[in-house]
């Protein structure tokens, strides 16, 4: 009896599952089929705060394209053994944690900061961790008009424990500007002596007020991670390309030929109507004259 009850519950559940989720059958939710990948990256932001970002994704062992984000997993961020904070993964499997400016990091003798992200495991998932070693890089972005030339000045350096600056050498720096959806790259150079000058183009429009956000970025560098610095400047040259067009199909007044053709057609037709009506009046007038003549004739008789 009990087995029949379970059978019905199972069938009903399957039917409900069939109606409400057609894809349900094709999804394999057993975590053992997935290889978990936890990867840590770091972004030094404009305000010199540092964002630590973890991507926690399960990848199907058989079908590598089948990726499943791990949701609501608690990630702990460490600098060596020092716990910096925790964050939970989103539906996309992303956990972010921001370290404020002025954080005192523990570094090794070469000045590298060891950052660790750790997931301590759950009932269905094993413990996972990742770590990166980066140096704290300082980027300075100055936007100046030198002899009326709009110039982007970039300085990049590291500091040792005593505060002595060491200029950056041989690292790619990208100069870009902000767009609606993404950044537009203007220049990519290998910085030498920690400094770089770039003559800003004079034909970029900017927003409606001519404002442009200029970025200097170091991307995915093995030693420094991601570092970005940006500044807004009123260097946009707004060109009004919206010419006011007259007499087009889409303008308020139509093409001239349309007015001409329509006028000719309507004048031709209505002139003919008028001509017809005039003739009708003439016929009527003649009819009246005939009537009058007949009346006169009858009177004479």
């Amino acid at each position, binding site marked *: 009896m009990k087995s029949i009850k379970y059978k019905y519950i199972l069938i009903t559940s399957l039917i409900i599952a069939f109606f409400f989720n057609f894809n349900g059958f094709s999804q394999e939710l057993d975590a053992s089929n997935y290889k978990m990948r936890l990867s840590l990256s770091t972004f030094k932001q404009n305000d010199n705060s540092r964002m630590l970002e973890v991507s926690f994704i399960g990848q199907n062992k058989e079908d590598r394209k089948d990726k499943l984000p791990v949701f609501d997993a608690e990630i702990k961020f460490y600098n060596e053994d020092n716990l910096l904070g925790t964050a939970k993964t989103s539906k996309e499997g992303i956990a972010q944690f921001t370290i404020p400016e002025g954080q005192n990091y523990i570094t090794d003798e070469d000045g590298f900061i060891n950052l660790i992200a750790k997931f301590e495991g759950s009932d269905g998932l094993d413990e996972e961790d990742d770590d990166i070693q980066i140096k704290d890089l300082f980027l300075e972005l100055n936007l100046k008009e030198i002899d009326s030339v709009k110039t982007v000045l970039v300085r990049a350096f590291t500091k040792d424990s005593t505060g002595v600056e060491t200029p950056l050498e041989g690292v790619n720096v990208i100069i870009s500007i902000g767009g609606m959806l993404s950044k537009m790259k203007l220049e990519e150079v290998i910085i030498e002596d920690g400094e770089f000058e770039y003559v800003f183009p004079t034909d970029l429009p900017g927003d409606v007020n001519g404002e442009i956000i200029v970025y200097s970025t170091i991307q995915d560098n093995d030693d420094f991670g991601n570092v970005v610095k940006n500044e807004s400047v009123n260097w946009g040259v707004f060109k009004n390309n919206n010419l006011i067009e007259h007499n087009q199909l889409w303008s308020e007044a139509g093409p001239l030929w349309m007015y001409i053709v329509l006028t000719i057609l*309507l004048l031709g*037709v209505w002139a003919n*109507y008028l001509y*017809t009506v005039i003739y009708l009046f003439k016929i009527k007038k003649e009819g009246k004259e*005939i009537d009058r003549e007949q009346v006169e004739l009858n009177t004479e008789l």
Partner: protein
Amino acid sequence: MNLENRKRELAIEFSPLLEKTTTVSKIWIATLVLIILVGLYAFIVQFTQGQIVTGMRDNAVWGIYTVNFIFFVCLSYSGAFISGILHFIHTPWKNSVSRMVEIITVLSLIIGPIYIILCMARLDRLLYLFMYPRIQSPITWDIIAVMTDLIGCFIYLFLTFIPDFAILRDNSENAPKWRQKMYKYFAIGYQDTPKQRIKLHKITRTMSAMIIAMAIIAYSVLAWVFSLTLQPGWDSSIFGPYFIVAGLYTGIAVIIIVMYLIRKYYHLESYIRKVHFSGAGIILLVLSLLYGYFTFSEYFTRWFSHKLYDTNLLNTLFTRYFWMFVFANYIGVLVPIVILFFNKLRNIKSITFAAVIAIVGLWFNRYLIVIPTLETPYIPIQDTREEFIHYTATWVEWSLSLAGVAAFILFFILLMKLVPIIPMSGIIDHERGQAKRKKSIK
């Protein structure tokens, strides 16, 4: 031949058509009035409750009102075209059909545009069409074309009526006073003097040429309302001539049906003879071949080019609208061709049957031009309720459609009570011409 006596004879001959009302025609009139009243009720329902009572929704913004509009307006244009052509043909048989064609032209041009007004959800904004017209819009051209054509057709119809009004004025002593007054007023003092006759013929001839030209322009403008859009099924360079041929096909078919009904119910066998049906049948055959060619060309090019949205449209036509498509484009073309092609099959009844099939096929053809295109838009349909995806006409739309047809028939009957359906002046002109010819031979 004493013309005055002959006019009197004709007036006496046709007076029963004008004065007597049989029981059958009374029942007919009552039925038509009833249908019109149901239509009026449907209009009140639509006016008070809005277009929600129709099958029209966000996508299918046009329904059978637009189909009826195209049908009636095309019928009118073809009537104007045929009427204009008939005026230039000097043959005695044209006299029997010319008035029917003129009445069909004017009545369908009055009824057709009413359907477009019914299509408008906000009638209070109707005035904006005239206050803020855009010359770039085919809708504006259509409004101008319909209005200009309507006035032209009215003038033309009036011109052709004048001589008959004059005959009736002079020969209706026993008619009621209001009728005598009306004939006198509309006859505008026409006495059939040579001077007046020349003047009237002159302006009628000019108006004939004018309404032929206007019919072609108005036909094309109506076709451009569709073909100047980028919608699949509408964006076609042959829509102008296609509409003209389809319109003429409609016109000839309706004339045949009207001839049949008038011949049968008014016993005008001596005026509407087999030769009229045979002639009209041959014209219908030629037009059905042309119409079939245009239809094939239209769909074949769409199918062959295999553009995504055209393919979607054709899939809809061959699935959801399969039987309508078959009737419109196979039965509606091939049956008339088969009947009219063989001399043995060509008799009055079969020619009329072919005309009825052609009319039904043409109405379906218009339906297939308007509705399936709107049901397969470029942008995906957001509201997936059945009535938003597929259009189905409601009782309100059917009632108003039938009311339009009923009004057409009713006004036709009433106009036939006003002037004889066979123009007496045409008979007089013909006999006068014959007499002249005899004199010149002597």
